[in-house]
């Protein structure tokens, strides 16, 4: 069975929010839209975003790391939001593993958002239904799009290409290889939800310079050796026997 997912490379994510608004612009006019905004031009604006970037600091100055952490529905293999839904609005597709909500069936009870340990469900306060990341289901399954564009909007937008998309059940897919070879990990595996989305950790490149590498035989300073001074007066050669 296919399980579509995102692998997000925290080693290169600079927290630019390109994924956040490209998601919003695609989906607000798409199958899963609208993505409603409340008080858009007033105090305390708030609205539906399927994908958000959180920024954290770790460590104490000067040993500080700054992390940008994009978060959206992880499309769990065993999604706790599905069985709690009293109307069957929350469901996991059998053909590709994407977790979706049918707004026509949703009664806005929010059980799913209580059940989700990752806080990625988004309640539309105007329509009173639950919304969430669809992996751009209306792009990835639209056969009228060229294959190169049958990807989630966030993946296409990401300037650092930190978002990889594919089938994690196919061991040869780009996502599976990335998880396997670059230490891909799932969030909070202890919940047993088996999140499909994975994250790749920070990697540090260091340079080791040995002391004997500093000075080399072709050191250009040698070219600048001062001209030899002409001998003046006696030398040992003149006086020693």
């Amino acid at each position, binding site marked *: 069975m296919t399980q579509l997912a995102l692998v997000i490379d925290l080693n290169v994510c600079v927290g630019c929010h*390109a994924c956040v608004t490209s998601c919003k612009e695609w989906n607000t006019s798409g199958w899963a839209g609208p993505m409603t905004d409340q008080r858009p031009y007033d105090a305390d604006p708030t609205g539906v975003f399927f994908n958000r970037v959180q920024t954290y600091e770790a460590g104490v100055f000067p040993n500080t790391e700054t992390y940008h952490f994009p978060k959206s529905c992880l499309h769990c293999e065993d999604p706790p939001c599905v069985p709690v839904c009293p109307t069957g609005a929350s469901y996991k597709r059998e053909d590709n593993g994407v977790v979706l909500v049918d707004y026509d069936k949703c009664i806005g009870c929010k059980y799913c958002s209580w059940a989700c340990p990752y806080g990625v469900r988004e309640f539309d306060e105007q329509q009173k239904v639950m919304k969430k990341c669809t992996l751009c289901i209306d792009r990835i399954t639209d056969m009228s799009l060229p294959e190169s564009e049958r990807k989630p909007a966030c993946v296409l937008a990401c300037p650092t290409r930190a978002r990889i998309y594919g089938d994690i059940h196919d061991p040869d897919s780009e996502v599976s290889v990335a998880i396997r070879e670059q230490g891909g990990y799932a969030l909070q595996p202890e919940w047993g939800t088996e999140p499909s989305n994975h994250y790749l950790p920070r990697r540090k490149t260091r340079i080791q310079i040995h002391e004997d590498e500093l000075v080399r035989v072709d050191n250009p*300073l040698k070219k600048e050796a001062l001209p030899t001074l002409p001998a003046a007066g006696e030398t040992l050669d003149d006086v020693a026997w």
Partner: protein
Amino acid sequence: MQDPTSRSDSDQGRVEVKETTCYMCACRCGIRVTLRDGEIRHIEGNPDHPLNKGAICAKGSSGIMKQYSPARLTKPLLRKQGAERGSSEFEEISWERAFELIEGRLSKIRAEDPKKFALFTGRDQMQALTGMFAKQFGTPNYAAHGGFCSVNMAAGMIYTIGGSFWEFGGPDLDRAKLFIMIGTAEDHHSNPLKIALADFKRRGGRFISINPIRTGYSAIADEWVPIKPGTDGALIMAITHELIKQGLYDRDFLIKYTNSAELVVDDPSRDDHGLFRRFEMHIEEGCFDPENKLWWDIDLDREISTHTPGVDPRLMGAFKLEDGTPVKPAFQLLKDRVEEYTPEWAAHITGIPADTIRRLAHEMGVVARDQKIELPIQWTDTWGNDHDSVIGNPVAFHAMRGLAAHSNGFQSIRALSILMTLLGTIDRPGGFRHKAPFPRPIPPCPKPPNSPEAVQPNTPLDGMPLGWPSKPDDLFVDEDGEAVRLDKAFSWEYPLSVHGLMHNVITNAWRGDPYKIDTLLLFMANMAWNSSMNTENVRKMLTDKDEDGEYKIPFLIVADAFQSETVAFADLVLPDTTYLERHDAMSMLDRPISEFDGPVDSVRIPVVPPRGDCKPFQEVLIELGSRLGLPAFVKEDGSRKFRDYPDFVVNYETSPGSGIGFLAGWRGKGGEKFLKGDPNPRQWEMYKENGCFYHYELPKSYQYMRNWNRGYLEWARAHSMIRYAEPITIHLYSEVLQRFRLAAQGKWPGRIPPQRLRKRVEENFDPLPFYSAPLEHKLVDTHTYPLNALTQRPMAMYHSWDSQNAWLRQIHTHNYLFVNPRTAEASGFGDGDWIWIESPINKVRCMARFSEAVEPGTVWTWNAIGKAAGSWGLSPKANESQKGFLLNHVISEELPPCEAGDHMSNSDPVTGQAAWFDVRVRIYPAEAGEPEVTSPQFKPQKRVPGQDPKRGKWQAFVAGAFRKKAKIQE
């Protein structure tokens, strides 16, 4: 719901796809805009575009919200009779009335004294037209925003290596192995840099970030080196000290391609002290740095012409020429200079441990030397030597405002350019690479006018409004050596102010120093808010009146697409279009979007019609140019020459028959030529068919070593990009600067600076970089004001001008002052508390947020989130004005009175670059009971006629159905 897999978005409504160029920031990515029933459905990156390769940023995708923003201006507006300026009381008028008003006013000014009209524009990239309009009008009072952005970067690098970061060059991360970014630099070239940086890291490159703050790209750096603001020059020179001490410099590169081995007269008693010893030869017109200098031959132990085949010259030593003149190679002078700049000395200033400084130097030097790249590309240098390969030393750098926005920035950036040169990285793989039309001669040929006579009634300006002085005689000063320009650019106060000093225009015009003006036209420049320093007082100046009741700045015209804070102060408002509604040219005559491999320019083509009565500012200038009879805009009989801006772009030539116009692609009658050729009536169509850009890829052998690459230089001359094909020798030692210093010492045969400025010019026009604390740090009490205060932009707002955007404002609704917890503890407040930040000129109340990602001597905030109440189509209660704040209120546009004058700009004394990042502050908790709102507050700005009605509580954007629902007028 319908099964999502059984529908296609392309079946929803009437779908059209159009290509154009983004302008949500200054990056100018290629975009594809999908429309549904005439409304914007989706904006995505154009995958075929060389700049962004399909990527799009947070702003780019939010362009929809810009297009349908309630801050849009849609009607020309005139301040109501009897209404006070600043009260935002306007009446709608017709364009005809607006043009009549401007025409009447400007034709009178032009006939009497053209410099009483000043045109300043907030954004660059339209300067080919705006600068040309100013020149044609005859006023020298023109510039774009470079003076308060990053002119130090442009000037410091162009006066050293003949190119600079961003549009004109950048780090070659495709092949670099070590990348060092110094200071905040993310705003510029942001998408391409994100793409390149991520690929670089994936390939295992090492990325070091030197910055007081760890945000932005610094977050993913392999190492963060916190540094005290304004001390970058000290760090760079200590690294230089260590590189020279260890012999970790590229000797061969220095000798062949820089003036390192060239002999400088070394006798302080002589008038030519510090100049290169030159011999007589034929010199091409305008060539500043001809090849008539000397080396010291190691073998013969005597002087010899530079570049004599087979000669190995000395870089170090002191010699006497045959005629007895004492000389030293330029490199020896650099070595002497950095002798005292030890890592221990710099550690104290920068806060970086000496061992770290040494290690940084070793990493740079060893990677450059031991990880060389050799590409099998044959090329020939200007001296006729054939090379079988191109060598690269893979250490790359990037820097922008972090270095630039200090009063010592020019010399710090000279130091950085020299460091890059010592490592042998200029226009080589893995190092710094140029982008067309750079490299250009050092300095480039265009010059500003050099006497008040250049300004004459009813006559175009004699010279370029902006140019590149190479000697005191190029300055734009009067008989007393004082400024002719309103902003005092190109005067002895700021001799190399190549981008002007927009940040002093309002203060100078208000004070009438050097003179009063009549009309100030501001385009896309928010000078009553985030584009001014000392903002609260600048707002007062805009409404201040003479004794006779007239405004001190008599007439203010504001052209903008949005209801900015500045609009409130206008006498006349001209509604501009958005980038999706107009034609534009990102011209080779201005700042194109060239790639390392060759010239690229691009256009915008409207994807939707303009809203209301909006008119592109370019059309306004074409109309005014025609009405005023400016020579370039009218035929010989005085009748209008160009139908509109697209017609102008196709048919305008820099001079009749020159073959050079605004666009480089598809020139010639049938589009068969590029860069130079006859106007092509189908040029716009050809750009449209090609994704709105033109990209010429140079042959591989012309892509590197372009300063000295004969093939490239001759190609560039043949295509009219440069005036002559002489080698562009790197100015490790700057003779240009020495000429100004000699003038200050009374040793220059031409102009000399006024007495009050002698010491300032002598000190700062040092031909070798030096470190000196920022001016403000020397003039204010740093014990009372112990902290540095900085601003950066968050990525969702890099280089953009609309945080009123409904989506982006949900990401950053207000800003905090970020403070290291140790600093906050010493000041007695906690995380989230209301505090005051105070400088010698003003204070701001704001909220504090603790951060471990900032060095303890620095506090900082995100810039341009804070707004004045009621502006930008926002409710007066919006977080941006109630919790958000503008740091600019505490940053002075002028220095405290000093020897150089009572009203010197708070700027770099060489370039006039606004020293935003020099500000010193103290912080303390707000009193209990103070209102929990930022201060200062301003009376809420009123909406203007033509703005959309107030939007409701809900917004559910669905393309095709939105405008009707939100009652947005067409």
